[in-house]
């Protein structure tokens, strides 16, 4: 019998799989700038972010996404940062956000 056209398709489970080991490039970022680990997702960086008002940039979210392994998206979003440094002044955990963002931005494939 020919395969029928079902009119719908299956999709993979959307849940993040944390069992997957961290990507090597993610590990490099975390080791180069260990202060990233101190992030407690309080959101102060996003609250003061100038670029975040107009773009999907929110540093604490980048940290969360980074571990999830979606490096292309992290890199892309990190490039919205204008390096004004307000977030770094406000971060209660002293994360070196400037350097972290630069490392993250380098994860995106170079623009043609």
């Amino acid at each position, binding site marked *: *019998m*020919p*395969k*029928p056209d*079902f*009119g*719908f*398709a*299956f*999709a*993979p*489970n959307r849940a993040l799989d944390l069992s997957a080991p961290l990507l090597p490039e993610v590990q490099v970022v975390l080791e180069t700038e260990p202060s990233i680990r101190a992030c407690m997702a309080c959101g102060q960086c996003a609250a003061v972010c100038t670029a975040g008002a107009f773009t999907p940039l929110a540093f604490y979210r980048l940290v969360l996404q980074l571990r999830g392994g979606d490096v292309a998206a992290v890199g892309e979003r990190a490039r919205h940062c204008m390096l004004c440094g307000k977030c770094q002044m406000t971060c209660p955990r002293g994360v070196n956000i400037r350097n972290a963002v630069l490392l993250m931005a380098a994860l995106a494939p170079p623009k043609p």
Partner: protein
Amino acid sequence: MTPLLWKDYQKEVPDNHYFFVRSCIRQTFFPGAEAALLDILRNSLGLDVFEDRRHTTCTGIAYHCDLVPLETIMTVIARQLSLMTEAGYRHLLVSCVTSFGIYLEMLDMWQHHPEMLEQTREALWKSTRRSFELPVALVHTSDLVYHLRKPIADRSPHRLVDKSTQRALRVVDHVGCHYAKIFPAGGFGGAEFPSVLSGLAETFGGEMVDYPERRHCCGFGFRHYLLQENRGYSLSNSRIKFESMEAFAPDLILTNCPGCNMFLDRWQYTLAEMSGKTYDREGKGIPVLSHEELAALMLGRDPWTLGLQMHQVQLEPLLDKIGIVYQARQKYSMLAGAASLPGEPSVLKVSFQ
């Protein structure tokens, strides 16, 4: 009083005298299951189970599609209860798990909001001149089969054991979400570890296998399955279950909900067509049975009168393991004589002996 552990919770189930209400889905896809259940209860066990031909759908499927207001479904339920009252019964036996959840929910609402019960009585009287009493016991058919598992097993010539190797058959269960997730006290074992199917399989000598997505929904999703373009939801959630049970190599999937029984059967075919994959080793799919179908097979009922030819995943590999003798030629023959054979899927293996 020791704190309640739901896992050990035993629901109270009356021994006899039931008013029976059917399931739209079971009647549609597994007509032999309900017939076999009534046959077992009435003829093998001599119980009094009454059916009133005037009962209707509970409208639960439409309710969960958000097409029927709460007041409406409450009054439809009240009408069913009025038939039960009129026939002199107080124990309600429900075939469908969605329906069972609906009855539990309405009784719960009436208990906590007595004014709603009064409104319902009034609405039913105005619209149909009927009145009703509340049931003293609300029992799903799987509850009753579980409750009667020992007398059934005593009468059974078969066991859930591979006849040639004496290996206990590996059973995974899938309990319908609305059986006990909404009201844990409504089901044996509560919400997390319902024992209603595992206890039944073990009584017949099967080995229960726990698996990661045991409590994940089959994915019916009401409006999702009922709209063709939305069915990917249903399929994908069942697939999560199949993927998770595959490593445990089950011989049988046991269900108590008519919808789940249908989905876990049909989606194996659909997934095989779409992805080329089956979740057993031989490409025949994992057989799926509901509690009544299992009980009827164990009691030696004829598989084709039971309607097992209406399953897409064939049951013969399981019947052969158990050692159930069947007339292969009878499978697709009808009252009027030999009928045509079903078509053959392109991936899922079926055989027409």
